């Protein structure tokens, strides 16, 4: 099967520091792929380069959205263009719109799939009104799926940490992506909550057909969720493979895991 995300030789320099060094990575339709590695390995930087936050120094980022399959190069695009093309992300340090309600946060996610312009907003014709209603409804049902329907009208800043992480996912889903990039979604969650997250991610893939690329340090979650795992260290890819293979890979154990773990 053709990869829907194909990253080749991605390189990123910060001054003298090479944070990414010719990294290759690919994700196929419907896959859950994990990106792991020690702290400072360059995982978040990798996300930033793919989503247009940074402009990579070198390499290619290609996507082939499943709906209109033509492959296209997306490095150098503005973040909003990347999102329009169907890649949505969450942030390692939560970045919600703190002073907006939970529902509004998700509605912002819908922004790029809406059409109403200034005139539409002022005149509020039938189509605009329909669109607004539809967006409210869509946002609500996403929240319900994610289990935040109790909090629709709360301010994002007043949510507990775990709920904020889930809201980030909800917001990203609202952009109707074909692929979600999750940066440490389980950080700050207790094992019980992590378990719920595990189920949630599986459900997103199953019911929406969204592929997932995730960064995570919780090995239990990574091992149980992912189809394939990529491992980075010092900006380089040091291994890739199935969970079972990775958990036994001696390089990975040495650099990252510290011991063999059960996949």
């Amino acid at each position, binding site marked *: 099967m053709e990869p829907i995300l194909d990253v080749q030789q991605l390189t990123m320099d*910060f001054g003298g520091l090479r944070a990414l060094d010719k990294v290759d990575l690919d994700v196929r339709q419907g896959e859950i792929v994990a990106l792991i*590695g*020690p*702290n*400072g*390995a360059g995982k*978040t930087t990798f996300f930033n380069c793919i989503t247009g936050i940074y402009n990579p120094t070198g390499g290619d980022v290609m996507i082939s959205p499943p709906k209109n399959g033509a492959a296209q190069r997306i490095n150098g695009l503005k973040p909003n263009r990347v999102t329009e093309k169907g890649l949505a992300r969450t942030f*390692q*340090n939560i970045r919600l719109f703190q002073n907006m309600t939970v529902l509004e946060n998700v509605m912002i996610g819908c922004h790029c799939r809406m059409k109403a312009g200034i005139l539409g907003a002022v005149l509020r014709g039938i189509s605009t009104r329909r669109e607004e209603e539809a967006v409210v409804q869509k946002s609500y049902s996403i929240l319900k799926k994610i289990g935040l329907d109790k909090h629709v009208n709360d301010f994002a800043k*007043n*949510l*507990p*940490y*775990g*709920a904020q992480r889930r809201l980030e996912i909800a917001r990203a889903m609202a952009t109707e992506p074909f692929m979600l990039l999750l940066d*440490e979604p389980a*950080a*700050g*969650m*207790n*094992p*019980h*909550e*992590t*378990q719920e997250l595990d189920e949630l991610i599986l459900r997103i893939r199953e019911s929406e057909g969204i592929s997932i690329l995730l960064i995570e*340090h919780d*090995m239990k979650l990574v091992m149980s969720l992912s189809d394939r795992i990529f491992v980075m260290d010092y900006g380089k890819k040091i291994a890739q493979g199935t969970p079972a293979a990775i958990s036994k890979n001696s390089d990975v154990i040495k*650099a*990252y*895991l*510290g011991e063999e*773990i059960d996949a």
Partner: protein
Amino acid sequence: MLSLVDIHTYYGNIHALKGVSLEVKEGEIITLIGANGAGKTTTLMSISGIVPPRNGNVHFLGEAITRVNPNKIVSMGISQVPEGRRIFPYLSVLENLDMGAFLRNDQEGVKSDLDYVFSLFPILAERRNQAGGTLSGGEQQMLAISRALMARPRLLLLDEPSLGLAPLIVKQIFEIIKKINSENNTTIFLVEQNANLALKVAHRGYVMENGRITLSDAASSLLVNEEVKKAYLGI
């Protein structure tokens, strides 16, 4: 050493702590576990005086420290590794560590402590002149812990020190916690999501729900407590 008696803390209109009482004895490692939003962070912030409790009392070494300025509290020997690391983003790693020792005057001691934390986290030594804000998440966490250690506290408050760290480092961190507790006789108050690990290093533990302490026991008993297992250990 530290005791909280029936403290109530608010964020504007949100009643975050609804009568928390707990105690930490000299030389102990105690841990506070609880779901997201239970009020663990708030408890630490109330002790440090950043979010002073509206009612109730906090005593440290026999002195009341409720509504005392945070800098006074620090000078009495309480250091905190706050949630979210809170690295000074434009200070270099070295300067961040220096800030940790802000109230100390013994140049020699500071120097040797610096070497000590660099030995704990060699990566920090490598990045010593990089601005704190550009470190990766995990590097920042190491820096936050080191910074607190630089104050040579008598009581160290740790808020989710393992957050965002690689498994290898997490293990390391917990070892360091044990080490500073036994070697330097630093008392440790540990807040953790990773309850499993926390209860393994701690002597005693408290469980917090919705701004109240609902359970307290020896850590080993909590580890086998059915409810705790179900709710926090994910087993």
